């Protein structure tokens, strides 16, 4: 199913070329191919459907406007994904939703017990648990662990250092484990 492939879908080079020449049909095909993936990524980070829709709309307007500057040696889907990530982070930064970790907090973080059990396997609804994280924790977790961005790239997106991303990710895992340890998030035997 095309929807489940997200940003791993690839369009033929001819489509990208036609879109660069301004052909509306090719631009529409780009939208149809990646709009769900863009929405999924934006929604995972911001958790607000209306904000995620605004992000998708603005992203594709930007894509139309700047597709001529896309260099074909890179992955086209990756280029769109980067625009979605940046746009979402910028939106939530503008709304002051992000709680950023300061440098003093960094030194108090070392821990050795996060991965002693497979606590996430026993959780009922990972998606809703992610919704309970702070926006910065969720954003870094999604960008690093799901989308595969490096800490350096994530730091750049937030206009912060690489260690900001590392620390925020570590805090995200700690928060997630805490949520998973709560009795309400465990799968109750026989209650399917």
């Amino acid at each position: 199913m095309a929807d489940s492939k997200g940003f791993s879908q690839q369009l033929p080079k001819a489509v990208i070329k036609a879109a660069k020449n301004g052909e509306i049909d090719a631009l529409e095909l780009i939208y149809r191919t990646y709009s769900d993936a863009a929405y999924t990524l934006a929604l995972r980070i911001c958790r607000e459907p209306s904000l995620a829709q605004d992000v998708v709309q603005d992203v594709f307007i930007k894509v139309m406007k700047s597709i001529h500057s896309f260099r074909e040696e890179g992955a086209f889907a990756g280029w769109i994904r980067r625009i979605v990530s940046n746009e979402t982070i910028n939106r939530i930064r503008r709304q002051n939703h992000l709680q950023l970790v300061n440098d003093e907090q960094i030194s108090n973080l070392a821990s050795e017990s996060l991965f002693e059990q497979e606590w996430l396997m026993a959780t009922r609804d990972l998606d809703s648990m992610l919704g309970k994280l702070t926006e910065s924790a969720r954003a870094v977790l999604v960008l690093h662990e799901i989308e595969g961005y490096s800490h350096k790239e994530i730091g750049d997106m937030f206009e912060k250092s690489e260690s900001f991303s590392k620390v925020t990710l570590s805090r995200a895992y700690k928060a997630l484990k805490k949520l998973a340890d709560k009795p309400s998030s465990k799968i109750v035997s026989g209650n399917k």
Partner: protein
Amino acid sequence: MMHLTDEQLIARDDVNDLHLAECEHCRLKAEKLAGIRQQLQKLPTHKLPVDLWPSVKQAELTERRKHQLESSEKRAKFWQISSFALAASLLVTGVWVGVFQSSNSQVDGGLAEQVNLLIDQNKELQLQLKSRSGRELEGNFEFNRLTQELDKLDARLQRVYMQPGNLIEKNKLWSMRKILLVELNLISKDRHSIESDKKAIRI
């Protein structure tokens, strides 16, 4: 034996990987982290609840129209400066070559005379237009479109005068140019009247 911290497990590097190769305790923890990462990768995708393409397309088309208008205004401004010079150079150089060549043939005599008459009429219309053209016409879409047409026609005329003879083509192009200038004069006349009326009302 020292073990890796959670942070070191999350952000692995070559040194950490060397430790993992030797330490079963940390390797087990790394495997658990890999399991968590797999769970995260399996998160469901979401379907966009509304089709945003119509609004994206509309925004793109609006942007294109704006861009077209801006470039047509630029061209119109360029034309206002350069077209008179271009026409003047045609009249002074190319036309005289053409007239001289055409006057050598009695058969073409009538047509050459007609071309000369058209050139005079073009010159007159161009002067009228020059006296009326002002900034108020810069945003006029039709005026801009016609000046672009005139621009193209001047380029064709230049090419025709590069070759000897071809009086029929010259006659055709000067006639077309005359029609365009008449239309441009009509637009600028209307605009001029509106502006005069506005001034009169203000007084």
